[in-house]
């Protein structure tokens, strides 16, 4: 097997949906919400993206619809857990199943299709060739020629990092995650902040879904997120909910996925590379928990 630009290019494509969802998860984590509904929210985005592109003929309207639909879907979590005090984990688990059922239901009622929908007329996002970057040897073919959303995801990493670490808003948000009561006493509007973060996260998941359904492929299939939202949850942990950390974690998963395809071609088990990132994450968590061990062992740091 050769390590060539195409491998890294495939890795960048594979990581984009995970990265969008993981950024959403990181934001929620920072605000003190353990969001495991990323999988379902992204699936809603996939469906809305395909539906939007199909009925308007414009893939960008599909992306817009994906963002809107996923943000609306994430309102379930916002209303349920932030306003009504329901358990975020329970609601998220149900939301994931709701998304699977809802998209399959709509696939059949709206498109009259079962299992999957694809059509030569369905327009996906065009690849972008970066004029100057393309010329760079080795790096050019890796960085150029992706769907625009790939570049949007990198921008989103930068924007999230600036928002979190260089803005007053981000400082308040991080404070909220560390100690909601203290943040509230200093005048942070807890409910509003959390709504904002959950819904913005929904929008990010929508972008991830749109990239998956209109960028990586051009179709909708039942349950097509296939665990990517869960990988994003893991990437948030591995990246310690920091934007750049989450990017590196998602890169690890993307590389593993791309490498897995290659290994399969050589008759080596793809399952080994599938499993590797989870093991790496677990080890990383051991190591980091030694440093950050909480004082109170009973209140396991699940929902803060």
């Amino acid at each position, binding site marked *: 097997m050769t390590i060539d630009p195409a491998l890294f290019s495939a890795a960048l494509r594979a990581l984009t949906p995970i990265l969008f969802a993981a950024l959403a998860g990181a934001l929620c984590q920072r605000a003190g919400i353990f969001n495991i509904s990323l999988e379902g929210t992204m699936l809603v985005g996939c469906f809305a993206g395909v539906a939007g592109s199909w009925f308007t003929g414009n893939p960008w309207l599909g992306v817009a619809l994906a963002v809107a639909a996923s943000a609306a879907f994430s309102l379930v979590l916002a209303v349920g857990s932030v306003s009504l005090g*329901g*358990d975020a984990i329970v609601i998220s688990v149900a939301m994931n199943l709701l998304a699977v059922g809802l998209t399959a239901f709509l696939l059949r009622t709206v498109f009259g299709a079962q299992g999957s929908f694809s059509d030569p007329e369905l327009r996906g996002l065009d690849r972008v060739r970066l004029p100057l970057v393309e010329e760079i040897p080795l790096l050019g073919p890796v960085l150029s020629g992706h769907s625009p959303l790939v570049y949007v995801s990198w921008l989103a990493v930068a924007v999230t990092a600036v928002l979190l670490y260089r803005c007053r808003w981000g400082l308040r948000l991080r404070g909220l995650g560390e100690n909601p009561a203290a943040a509230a006493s200093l005048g942070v509007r807890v409910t509003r902040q959390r709504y904002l973060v959950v819904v913005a996260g929904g929008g990010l998941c929508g972008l991830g879904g749109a990239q998956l359904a209109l960028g990586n492929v051009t179709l909708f299939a039942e349950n097509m997120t296939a665990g990517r939202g869960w990988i994003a949850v893991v990437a948030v942990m591995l990246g310690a909910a920091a934007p750049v950390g989450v990017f590196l974690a998602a890169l690890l998963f993307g590389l593993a996925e791309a490498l897995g395809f290659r290994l399969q071609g050589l008759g080596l088990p793809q399952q080994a590379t599938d499993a590797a990132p989870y093991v790496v994450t677990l080890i990383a968590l051991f190591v980091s928990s030694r440093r950050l061990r909480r004082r109170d062992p009973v209140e396991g740091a699940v929902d803060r």
Partner: protein
Amino acid sequence: MTSRTAEATPPAGTARPSRLLRTRGGVVALAVLTGVVVGTLVLAGTGTNPLTAYAALATGAFGPDNLPDTLSYVLPVLGMATALAIPLRAGMVNLGGEGQLVLGAVGALVTGLFSPLPAPLTVVAALLVGTLAGASYAALAALCDSHLGVPLLVSSLLLSYPAISFASYLVRFPLADPGSSLPQSERLPAGVALPTLGAGQISVGLVAVLAVVAAYTVVDRRTPAGYEVRMTGLGARFASYAGIDRPRLTVRVLAASGGIAGLVGAILVLGFPFRFIDGALISPQYTWIGLMAALLAAAHPVGTAVAAFFFAALTSGAFEMERITQAPRELTAIVQALVIIVLATSTGLLRGKGGPR
């Protein structure tokens, strides 16, 4: 609507377990009613007569022709619901049910294929190995929680994926069926199978799962272990203060949970089609439907069983509803999820707490 309901809900952490228990029946009724109303509206919206659809749903679930199908669906859902209810009862969430289920199946498969024992003994050994495989893997997640500082929710979820990959590898390469291009293992030798009841459609495994439910009920109500588990669920700090060794309890609870999940996996492999097919235990969402059933009943043993039976019947009956009315069967998944969401939002289900503390 949002703000009004928010005012009606008492603020931050005032809900006490006693209040929760008093209103719980009402809340479940409200959640189920919401599910039925939404289901009816969606059916009417797609141009189906809801009454016809419900009649077909009932026939599909409990009609004489369909009951065996329903029961074969009840087995894994009920088993997984019970498995996942046990940690929930102690206020812990085991998100690794899929990995434990699959490892149980793999353990039973390997035993069944290579055991030198006579067939009936091999079946027993396969069930034992499956149970042990699930139990030890779940206990590993518990050890990560209590000794390595990785929260149980996370460790159980993370461990699940390598297990699924491992099983996938085994049935694609070393144990692959050479006569098939499908990712499936070889068939178990003749005779290595659980006996069936009635017209041969109901596995004895269902009886085993019912026995597990009965055992959980007894342990929960009548034994010190069950008491410790419930106390920990009601107040983990207080339980520790009262002398309950939490790390030890976590390992035991998880071992019981994973053991049951592994047993379910073993039972499934020892029934039709007598082999392990990659993804066959994951894609029907047994684990997640089971988890929802356990959540609906707040992990109460009998309640969990009733909820699991209800969810399995709903899922199974939906095939007949779809055949008769053309209304997509995915509708039942939507209704199930809605019931849980309404329930969770109206109680703060697991711990009866308000949002930010």
